[in-house]
């Protein structure tokens, strides 16, 4: 990654020497978890950012200025993330930072960004990143609390009032479990069974049997990611437990249907983004253009399907580019931050962003679409 940047700098320097005038460039810093346990988040994020920077520079950059990308791989380690954030600010002198694939690494980068006054867009989920609002910190993924609210809204519409929850004990599952328990009351939903499983567990039938034996359970909700939700889905089918099953946005990918098996996953619902149903969006959908161009470009370049996580990086980059082009001064982090906070109506892959001094997430529940698995494919139920 570094050598690529150095080459880019060398090329620019050479160009400058030839033409006799140094070309201005915008220094953008990134620290994501491209390897390690959070690689499934960081890998598509890094690829997305590299692709978008390349695209933008080919098209002439922002107001004629090219973007110089410095990308570090923190491997999911908060200590490394802090070191890289400091290096980005002090050595690479970047004007903005994108990154923090996990809530842990985000918290490390966040303190550096706040101290140094550099705008930072996080790619992690936790609500604590933007609540309370911090001056220089923004984020693109919706919070797990919003996922709970979206699911409960859907349950409410079906007159479901008593549910069982089975959550992963990993960071994602535990956080969403807490948020769901917190907001359930507002939707008139009672959690009558609350079970957990370890992220590497191979069988969840005991927990599901307990939920089944609890009186009056009308639906099951499974916050978690990785293999857990796929195994829960298979176990529910194995037990012949016939209540609606809800999964979280953590497993919103085509790979999930494959892992859980189309038959076991039939009828399952989860909140997902427009990216997941890119090929089924109506042409007049507000997100049609941005989603289609991103999925096509990514597929062409990497021969892989896009993921929701790469979409978060896509949106963070679009927000930064939009803010810099409005800021007037691409050298001034404070001006970029101010422009970022004034963002309104920016259509991304995750939703339509509108920041304000009180809201550094800028998404509402409409960003989520309730999806159902039907015949091994996603179907929007709205």
């Amino acid at each position, binding site marked *: 990654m570094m050598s690529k940047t150095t080459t880019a700098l060398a090329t620019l320097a050479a160009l400058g020497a030839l033409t006799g005038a140094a070309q201005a460039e915008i220094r953008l810093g990134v620290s994501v978890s491209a*390897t390690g*346990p959070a*690689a*499934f988040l960081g*890998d598509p994020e890094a690829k997305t950012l590299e692709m978008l920077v390349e695209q933008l520079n080919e098209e002439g950059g922002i107001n004629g200025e090219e973007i110089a990308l410095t990308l570090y791989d923190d491997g999911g380690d908060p200590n490394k993330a802090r070191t890289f954030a400091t290096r980005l600010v002090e050595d690479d002198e970047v004007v903005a930072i994108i990154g923090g694939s996990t809530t842990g690494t985000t918290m490390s980068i966040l303190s550096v960004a706040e101290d140094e006054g550099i705008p930072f867009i996080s790619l992690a989920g936790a609500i604590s990143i933007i609540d309370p609002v911090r001056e220089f910190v923004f984020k693109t993924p919706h919070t797990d609390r919003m996922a709970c609210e979206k699911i409960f809204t859907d349950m409410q519409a079906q007159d479901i009032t008593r549910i069982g929850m089975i959550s992963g004990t990993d960071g994602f599952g535990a956080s969403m479990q807490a948020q769901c328990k917190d907001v359930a009351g507002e939707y008139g939903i009672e959690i009558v069974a609350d*079970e*957990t*499983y*370890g992220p*590497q*567990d*191979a*069988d969840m*039938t*005991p*927990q599901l*049997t*307990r939920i089944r*034996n609890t009186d009056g359970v009308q639906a099951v909700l499974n916050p978690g990611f*990785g*293999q857990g939700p*796929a*195994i829960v889905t*298979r176990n529910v*089918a*194995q*037990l*012949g437990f016939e209540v609606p099953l809800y999964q979280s946005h953590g497993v919103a990918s085509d*790979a999930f249907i*494959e*892992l859980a*098996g189309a*038959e*076991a996953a039939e009828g399952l619902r989860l909140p997902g983004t427009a990216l997941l149903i890119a090929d089924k969006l109506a042409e007049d959908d507000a997100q049609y253009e941005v989603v289609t161009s991103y999925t096509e470009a990514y597929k062409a370049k990497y021969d892989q399907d896009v993921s929701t996580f790469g979409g978060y990086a896509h949106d963070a980059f679009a927000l930064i580019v939009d803010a810099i082009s409005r800021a007037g001064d691409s050298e001034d982090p404070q001006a970029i931050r101010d422009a970022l906070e004034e963002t309104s109506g920016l259509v991304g892959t995750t939703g339509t962003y509108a920041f304000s001094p009180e809201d550094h997430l800028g998404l509402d529940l409409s960003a989520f679409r309730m999806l159902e698995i039907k015949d091994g494919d996603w179907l929007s139920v709205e």
Partner: protein
Amino acid sequence: MDALLQFLFSGLTVGAVYALVALGFTIIYNASDVVNFAQGEFVMLGGMITVFTYQAGLPLPLAAVIAILVTSAIGVALNKLAIEPARGAPVVSLIIITIGASIVIRGATQLIFDKQLHRFPSFSGDDPIHVLGATILPQSLWVIAGALAVFVGLWIFFTRTLTGKAVLATANNRVAAQLVGINTGWVMTLSFGLSAAIGAFAGVLVTPITLVGYDVGVALALKGFAAAMLGGMGNPKGALVGGLLLGCFEALTAGYLSSQYKEAVAFIVILGVLFVMPQGLFGSKSTERV
């Protein structure tokens, strides 16, 4: 009643997975007193290589055989490249070498294959078998049968064959074993090859249930290690019983007490057993003659 049966089915499924991993530890341990912490990676390799050869269009049984052979070769390479050059080093150093090897294998796997989770179809479909109101998947029966088969194979190997006895002799006293004409270098190569093959075989059987990704090995190795310690390290019977017991403890705790405490309870039971019987349930008492 049907709940109890369901918990036991779950415990047997998970326990058979642990037992298969634990059985893989026994051969290398019996040949060299080394606990091979790369054993979990052998399981992972068995699953991953099968997934990718199967996706490449080969029939599943052939893909599985290829995975077992390739993993076995990797086991032999691990012995030749890392363990043999360190000959004479204390056992603790060799154990640390296996931890290093597991990190290398994990890193190489995510580069050569990918970082996603995978699975291939169950051998006999996914229709659950109903027994008295409880259900078990056909694949679970495959895993249980696989664990039993490996156990019987190892038991015959160590008690009925000359090669098996040569392996035990090598662990007991390497110099004495050489003096009676045992090629100890060959015994080490054989034990790594066999252990890796058993690990890969486990990976092939459990992948339809547990799914496989480059990083599943660590957790499997830890649980398998715990099972082997509970039953008595180096004893195939201990590995089998230890694995099944550990699985059943976890399932019963999750079913009757709380899923929050299932691992805690399992490990407290292990600690309790080791406190009373430091060699594990079936471990032989080692006597040191001066």
